[in-house]
């Protein structure tokens, strides 16, 4: 596969604008074989501290498990904004994520980040797209992430379903979180993910949502932070974003531990039968 090395992490906002302007014309069933790479990305400690504060981590030198995703976000956006990319970026929905951390990641270590888009698959609400992220320190693979996105469109009812997430345990909540109206704007400012569906009721409505929703990657990171230090070292976590969390709202964290594994998730406070996020962690 062709590896294209970028000069540095590209600036996200112009890419998102370009992706928005070219959204309509995108078609085709093939994802170009291409890996975009940025080398030796240096972690900005102020941004990291703001991220750690917003997602419930201590301010420390260890990168939260979902943080390299944030570092790779501009590269991923650049890949999807390319003219030959078949799926429109605006309105794309993050469905799933699987992250493996091979060793503790220290903020002092520059990371080389690879972004590769994988296959398109039919889905009952459009097509799904696999994206693979890899992070290396001096050639050593230290972190990898496989994401599944949904490009909404004409779906096929008979499309094969992916792994269903495990059912959330019932019982009392272990924590109650009140997610404020400006959470999407706050997370956008620390992560660079300024997708309009997260920012404001009006901008979300323009994208076909009744109002703005929390970033899935915030709910994922906040849940991992609540599970303790397990995901800071070698570990694998998975997340399924099952139902959007409209802002503002109140969600409940539920947790079930078994051996080294943890099953956790967020459910609606108002309607506990609504599961927003399911997370598993093996450390």
């Amino acid at each position: 596969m062709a590896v294209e090395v970028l000069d540095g992490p590209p600036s996200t906002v112009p890419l998102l604008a370009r992706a928005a302007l070219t959204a309509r014309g995108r078609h085709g069933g093939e994802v170009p074989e291409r890996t975009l790479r940025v080398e030796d990305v240096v972690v900005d400690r102020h941004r990291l501290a703001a991220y750690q504060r917003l997602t419930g981590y201590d301010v420390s030198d260890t990168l939260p498990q979902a943080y390299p995703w944030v570092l790779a976000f501009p590269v991923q956006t650049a890949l999807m904004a390319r003219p030959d990319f078949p799926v429109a970026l605006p309105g794309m929905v993050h469905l799933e994520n699987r992250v493996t951390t091979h060793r503790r990641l220290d903020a002092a270590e520059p990371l080389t980040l690879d972004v590769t888009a994988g296959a398109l698959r039919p889905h009952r609400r459009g097509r799904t797209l696999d994206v693979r992220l890899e992070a290396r320190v001096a050639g050593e693979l230290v972190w990898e992430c496989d994401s599944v996105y949904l490009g909404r469109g004409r779906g096929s009812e008979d499309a094969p379903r992916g792994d269903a997430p495990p059912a959330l345990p019932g019982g009392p909540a272990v924590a109650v979180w009140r997610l404020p109206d400006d959470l999407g704007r706050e997370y956008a400012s620390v992560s660079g993910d300024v997708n309009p569906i997260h920012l404001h009721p009006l901008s979300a409505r323009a994208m076909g949502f009744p109002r703005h929703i929390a970033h899935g990657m915030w709910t994922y990171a906040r849940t991992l932070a609540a599970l303790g230090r397990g995901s800071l070292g070698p570990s694998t976590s998975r997340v399924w974003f099952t139902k959007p969390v409209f802002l503002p709202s109140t969600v409940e964290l539920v947790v079930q531990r078994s051996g080294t594994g943890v099953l956790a998730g967020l459910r609606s406070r108002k309607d506990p039968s609504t599961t927003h996020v399911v997370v598993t962690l093996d450390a």
Partner: protein
Amino acid sequence: MTTTRRAAVLGGNRIPFARQFGPYAEASNQDMLTAALEGLVARHGLAGERLGEVVAGAVIKHSRDFNLTREAVLGSSLAPDTPAYDIQQACGTGLEATILVANKIALGQADSAIAGGVDSASDAPIVVPEKLRQKLLRLNRAKTPADRAKAAISLRPTDLGIQVPAATEPRTGMSMGEHMAITAARWRITREAQDELALASHQKLAAAYERGFFDDLLTPYLGLTRDQNLRPDSTLEKLGSLRTAFGSGPDATMTAANSTPLSDGASAVLLGSEEWAAAHGLKPLAFFVDGETAAVDYLGGEEGLLMAPAYAVPRMLARQGLTLQDFDLYEIHEAFAATVLSTMAAWEDEEFCHDRLGLDAPLGSIDRAKLNVTGSSLAAGHPFAATGGRIVATLAKLLHERGSGARGLISICAAGGQGVVAILEAA
């Protein structure tokens, strides 16, 4: 409960100390204390371990941090069923925490414990003026719309403003430096003597880093691997060229360099019984022998604000049957260079020892070659509550290097005219 047993210092850990608004500007007390604890846990293999208790505190504390130490424990890899509580005795906090847990271990009430402290001069709570606070509370209490309107109307633009905490004594309105300047003048401590002590502190701390002394006492944090305040290549000329910061006129001798800077940092010390240590494969560095606290009446100007350790030490020596010279090492906290020099001058002074301490003879002088041998707060910085843990861990390791039976004295002055002192003995 009829017998006591020895409490051992098994290890210590701190994060490098940073200057105010330095690399830790965005870190909270809880972040820093968790980092110091986590490093201690990692180095001693305590992950998942339930300890007897963890005791720490901070001098400058947000009201939301009412359970600061417990929250740090929950954020660490220690077993979540490890209890914790906060204490606060100004700059004596860390050493007082050590005394408390050592006593519990000695009495058999705990087998293991961590004592520590943390302070941030950067992430400080901001307080609204008292008048505004009263009005806002009234507004909050108001039940009827009329009461609310009345309370709201009383708010004035001139009520606005913020107060940032400072190292000022509430009852005198004077800063600690101003208090110290009076004591320094009383003991005729010269500018040169203070600058020499400050320079020695930097040189000794730098040498300790060079020989790797802190390799197992420190966990890097937010990119810092050494104390930010450390200036290894400072000179007497440079120090002598600085303007004075406290006191006035020709008597002013105290500068920013021979006073400690406002700092951010955290420290933690692991203590345990000998049985617990053996069961966990840990070797005692030193035993906790004794501790004493004292306070002085500084309000009438009878005694200096930071002179309480001068009273605490002779009381502890008498109880132990020791003289001031019976120590291999002395750790006298350098709140200001003048604090160390005034304390030593008082112990050498016949009149002070007779009139104030009630002794027949002066305590005498101490061998300066044994004083703060790896530097102290002037070089390392002084995050108030974190200093005690830094000193206990440093001294325990130094005594261990010197071999069994070596004895060390710790003396720490604190705001409010208080002092905390202790004796450690090499294991």
